[in-house]
């Protein structure tokens, strides 16, 4: 099963993007907790594209593909904004008290909690391409 979706990189698109992933997860038989994680991972990645990728530019497209393969879900997110490798996202502080805790910087941390693999392949011609992979037990199997 493969599904594709495209929206403009605008804050107002995030709900539609989450609805798309949730619906695709339902169709693929992904159980609820894993589906929530996938929805959140895609939402965080897209929110970063909206906020930083196209910052100061005209918002371009965000493309999402959802592939249900044997035992795993593969999602790719493409955009033509500024390049950003998730490996460069700083590791957040999860333990200090409220005074020391920095506001923000948790998005990529959450993505890492909910998927098994993150691949980033920028391409000068086709733009940024992020691949998220999650091993999955199908609820209907």
């Amino acid at each position: 099963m493969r599904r594709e979706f495209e929206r403009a990189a605008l804050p107002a698109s995030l709900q539609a993007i989450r609805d798309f992933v949730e619906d695709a997860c339902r169709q693929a038989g992904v159980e609820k907790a894993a589906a929530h994680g996938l929805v959140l991972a895609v939402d965080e990645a897209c929110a970063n594209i909206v906020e930083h990728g196209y910052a100061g530019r005209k918002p371009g497209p965000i493309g999402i593909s959802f592939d249900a393969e044997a035992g795993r879900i593969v999602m790719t997110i493409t955009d033509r904004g500024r390049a950003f490798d998730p490996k460069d996202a700083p590791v957040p502080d999860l333990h200090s008290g409220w005074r020391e805790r920095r506001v923000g910087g948790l998005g990529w941390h959450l993505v890492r909690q909910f998927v098994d693999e993150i691949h980033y392949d920028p391409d000068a011609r086709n733009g940024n391409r992020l691949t998220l992979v999650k091993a999955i037990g199908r609820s209907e199997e």
Partner: protein
Amino acid sequence: MEILTEQRGPVMVISIVGSVDGMTAPTLTGSFRAQVTGGYIHIVGDFARVEYTSSAGLRALLETVKETRQQGGDLRLAGVQPEVLRVLELSGFTHILKLFPDIESAVASFSA
């Protein structure tokens, strides 16, 4: 997302209905900030009808916790649903925030 506010004595209860994400979180931050600016530093965030939050919602919460506590108040959460709780736990927010099962116990905690 919809926001409803209700004053209960010195405590302001802010009920959020819907999803908190990159689109709606700034509205939530603004709503919290308006209460603090208006002198309400004892705030209960009613999350019973929030089925989803991204890290954008966490920013709104931490910012408000800092603002209220710096003035001797607090933001406390009520009725957090399982999927939102999971996000709070994974982000280390359950060490920072005080959580209560419902609005009544969260409001009462301010006079304890």
